[in-house]
C-alpha cells in the first residue's frame, strides 16, 4: 500500500470506538482526537463516519449516551460503554488478534 494513511475496514471503527470508551466516558470530539493520536494519524477516520458509528452502536445498546459538561464547561454528549459493549469489545479484540496472528504467520513465512 503506497498511501500513508489506511482506509478503515468495515467493522474496524466499532472496535476502535469501543476500545476508546473502555477507559471511561468521552464525547465524540474526544473520541476522534484520541483515535488520531493513538494511531499517530495512520488511520484516517472521517468524523462523519465516526458520528454515524457512535449512534449506531448506541442503538445496538453497546454504548449509552448522556448529556454532560465538557472540560471547557460546554454541553456535550458523552458516550459510555455498557456491560454489553464491554463483552462485545472483548469478543472483537480476540477475533482481531487471531486474525492478525494468522495474517502475520503467512506474511513472515513467505
Amino acid at each position: 500500500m503506497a498511501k500513508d494513511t489506511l482506509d478503515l475496514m468495515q467493522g474496524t471503527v466499532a472496535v476502535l470506538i469501543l476500545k476508546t470508551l473502555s477507559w471511561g466516558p468521552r464525547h465524540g470530539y474526544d473520541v476522534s482526537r484520541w483515535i488520531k493520536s493513538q494511531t499517530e494519524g495512520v488511520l484516517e477516520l472521517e468524523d462523519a463516519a465516526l458520528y454515524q458509528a457512535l449512534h449506531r452502536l448506541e442503538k445496538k445498546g453497546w454504548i449509552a449516551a448522556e448529556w454532560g459538561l465538557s472540560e471547557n464547561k460546554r454541553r456535550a454528549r458523552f458516550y459510555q460503554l455498557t456491560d454489553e459493549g464491554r463483552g462485545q469489545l472483548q469478543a472483537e479484540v480476540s477475533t482481531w488478534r487471531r486474525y492478525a496472528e494468522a495474517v502475520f504467520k503467512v506474511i513472515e513465512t513467505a
Partner: protein
Amino acid sequence: MARVPGFRRSFRFPWRTADQVSAEVEEELGFHLEMVAEELAAQGWPAEQARLEAVRRFGDVEGTKRFCRALEVRKETRMKWMETLGELGQDLRFAGRQLAKSPGFTLVAVLTLALGIGATTSIFSVVYGVVLRALPFAEAERLVRPYFVSPEGEPRGAFSVANFLDWRAESKTIAGATAMYQGTMNLSGGGGEPERLPGAFVTADYFSVLGVRPVAGRTFAPDEDSPKAALTVVISEELWQRRFGRDPEVVGRSLLLNGKPHTVVGVIARGTQLPAGADAWVPMVFTEDDRNQRGAVYLAVVARLAPGVTLEQARAESDVIGRRLAEQYPEANASYMKGMTIKPLREQIVGETRKPLLVLLGAVGFVLLIACTNVANLLLVRAASREGEIVIRSALGAKRSRIVRQLLTESLVLALVGGAAGVALASWALKALVKLAPRGIPRLEEISLDSTALLFALGISLLTGILFGLVPALQTSRTDLIAVIREGTRGSKGRGGTRLRNALVVTEMALAVVLLASAGLLLRSFARLQEVDPGFKPESVVTFNLELPETKYTDEPKLRAFLAALTERMHRLPGVESVGATVFGLPLAGVDNTLSFQIEGRPPLPPDKEESIRIAIVTPDFFRTVGVPVVRGRGFTAQDRQGAQQVVLLNESAVRRHFPGEEPLGKRFELGWTSDGVTRGGEVVGIVADFKQNALEGEIDAQLFLPYDQAPLESLAVALRSTQDPQVVAAAVRTEVRELDPDLPVYGLQPMTEVVAASTSQSRFYMLLLGGFAVVSLILAAIGIYGVIAYAVRQRTQEIGIRMALGATSERVMRMVVGQGLVLAGAGALAGLLGAYLATQGMQSLLYEVSASDPVIYTGVALVLVLVAAFASYLPARRAAEIEPQMTIRGE
C-alpha cells in the same frame, strides 16, 4: 420483558419528540465542529477559515445529521413501545393480584360475564350461520330469484315452463337462469332398503348457474336435459357416504330411481345442496307440450346476475318483461300475475327464520347488557372499599389517567376471563341448540363456533370490559383526597356513587322487564297455540307416506288395486281399528293443491276472476281414522267407486266461503282437472268439520274432498288407528309394505301426535330460549338489587343504629330498607314497561292471538319484578333489623 438499551433509567425522562431529537443531534455535531475550529484557530487559522475547514474535515455533515436523527427517532419509538408494554405487563400482573385477592367478587363477576358473553356468542353463531353468512355458492350474492307479482301485489315464486323460457330468453340482465322443482324419488335395488330421497328435478345448467362444483365426477352436461339424453343423476355427499360408503366407483354406476335406471355422473359436496337436504338431482326434460304450457306453475327459478348489473337494474327489467307477459297472455297469466320482481336468493332461503332469530339476538344482547350493569355495580361497590388504595397511589403521584388505566385493565382482565369461560359455555350451548332446534331452520347443521364467532366473542368481551369498567373507573379515580383524609379511612363515595349505583340497578331492572315481557308474550302465545283445537284426534294414530312410482303403477286400476291390498293387510294387523288414506289431505301436513272450479248453474266467471279451491283425495274410512266428524250429509262409502256417480265432500270453511246462505248439498262442482276425458268433480253429498291443514296457527282453507276410487293419485299418506304401541305398529307396517312391494320405501312413519308436536316446535323453541334469557336476566337483576341494598345497609349501619337507639322498631327499619328496594324496582318496572311496549311492537308477527301490548302480561311482569325485588331487599333488611344499636354507635 426485553432489556431496554441505553441507560437503565430509574427515573424516566420524558420521551423526546422528533424536534427535540433533531435539536440534540444539531447540538452534538455543533459542539464537535466548534472544538475542531478552536483547535485550528489555536494553530493560527483565521476564525472564519477555521470554521470552514472544520466542516470540510468532518465530511458529509447533513448526511450524518439525517442518519443520526433517523436512528434516534427509531430508538425513541421502540423504547416508548417497550415501556408501554412494560406498563401493561405491570398493570396485568397487578390486576391479576387484585382479582385473586377477592375471589368471591371475581367468581361472581366472571360467571355473570360468562353467562352474558356465552349466551350472546352462541346466539350470534346461529344468527351468523343462518342469516348472515354467504350461501355456499360461488359469488352467491349475485344469485337471485325472480318472482311474479300477483294481482294483489304478493310475490309468487312458481313459474310455468313457457313463462320461464320467455323470461330467460328476453332478460339481458342475467348471465344464466335455471329452473327446478322439488320432489322426492324412490331409490331401490342394490341390496339396500328402499329409500325415499328428497331431491329436485333441474335444468341441465343448474349447477353451473349456482356455481357448485362436484366432489367426485361431474355435474350435468348441457344437453343432458334433452328428451333423447340417457337418464342421469347427481347425488349428495351424504347419500354417497350413507349408502355407498364413499365408494369412488359410484360415478358411472346405475341407480334405480322410481324404478328406472339412472347413471350417477357426480357427487355434490355436503352443505352446498339446494334445496337444503336434497340427496338427488335429476335433469328435467321439457317436452314440446311443456314448452307451450303457460298455465301450470311449478318451477322455482334461480338466476345469476350478469357482470356489472345491479339488483335494481334486473328488477326494473324483469318488471317490464313481467307486465308484457301478463298483457300478452291474459288467459293464462292475468289471474296469476300482473308483473315481476327479483329478490336475492339468500332472502328466500333464510326467509321466515330471520325475524325470530334477530329477536333472540336482541334479547340475548339485553342479557349481556344486564350482566354488564351487574358487574359495573359490583365494581362500584368494590371501588368504595378500595378508596384507601387509590388515595395512597394518587398521593404518591400516580396520575389520574394511570389509575383509570389500571382499573380498566382490571375490568378487561375480568371481561377476557369471563369471555373465555363464555366461549366454553357457548360451544356447549350451541350443540344443545342445534339438537333442540325445530326442523325448518335452514343451514342449522352447518353452524359451529368458527373464527367469526370467536372474533365476535373477543370483540364483545373487550367491549363489555370497557362498558362496565369505564364508569366505575372514572368514578373511583375522582376520589377526593382531602375529603377521604378528613373522613378517615372509611370514606364514603357520597351522593354521586349511590346515585350511579341506583341508576344502574334501575336500568338493569328495566332491561329485565323488557325481556320478561317478551318472553311472557311468547309464552302466552304458545299456550294459546296449545289450546287450539286442530279439528282431528291424533291420539293412537300412526301415519306414513308412500310414493307409488309411475313406472310400475302405470294406470289407475293398478293404483286402486295397490291401495285395496294395502288397506286389507293393514286391517289384519293386531289392534288396528281403522285404516284410511289420503292424497294431499293429511292434517297439519297437507299439500296445498288448489284447482279452479265451476259450480253448476252459476254463470261462468272471466279467467282473471276464476275461483279456486284446495283439494284432497281420501278413502271412505279416512275421516273416521283421523277423527274428523261428518257434520252434515254423508261421508264417502265403498259405493263411491269408479264408474259410480261422482261425489265430493266440502269442509265447513268451503261452505261458508262459497255457499253463504245457500244449501250446498246437492250442488255440483266441476274442477279444472280432466283425466282420461273425465272432468273431475261431482255432487256435494256431505260436509266434514274443519281441521287445520298446514299449521296450528294457520287459517283453515276452504277444501273439497274427492273419493280415492274416483280420482286415484300416486302420493299416498296412510293413517292407522290402533290400540297397539306406535313402535310395534311401525315395525309391522314396514314388513307388510315390503311384502307388497319390496322396492317401495315407507317414509314419514310416525305417531300423529308427533306431527302435532312438530307443528308447535318452532314456537316452543323460541319461547324456551327467550324464557331462559328472561329468567337469567331476572336472577341477575335480583342479584343487582340485592347488592345495592346490602351495600346501602352496610353504609347506613351507624344511622340505623342511632334510629333504633332513638326507638325505631326493627319492623320499621325493615320497612325502610325494603321500601328503598321497592322504589328502585318501581322505577325499573315503569321504565321497563315503556321499553317493552316499544320493543315488542316488532314481535307481533311472532305471536298467535296475543296482542304485543297484552295488559295481562305487562301487569304480571311488573308484579313479578316487584316481588323479586322485595325478596332481594328483604334479606339485607333483616340484617339491618338485627343491628345492635350499642355496638354500632360505639364501633365507629
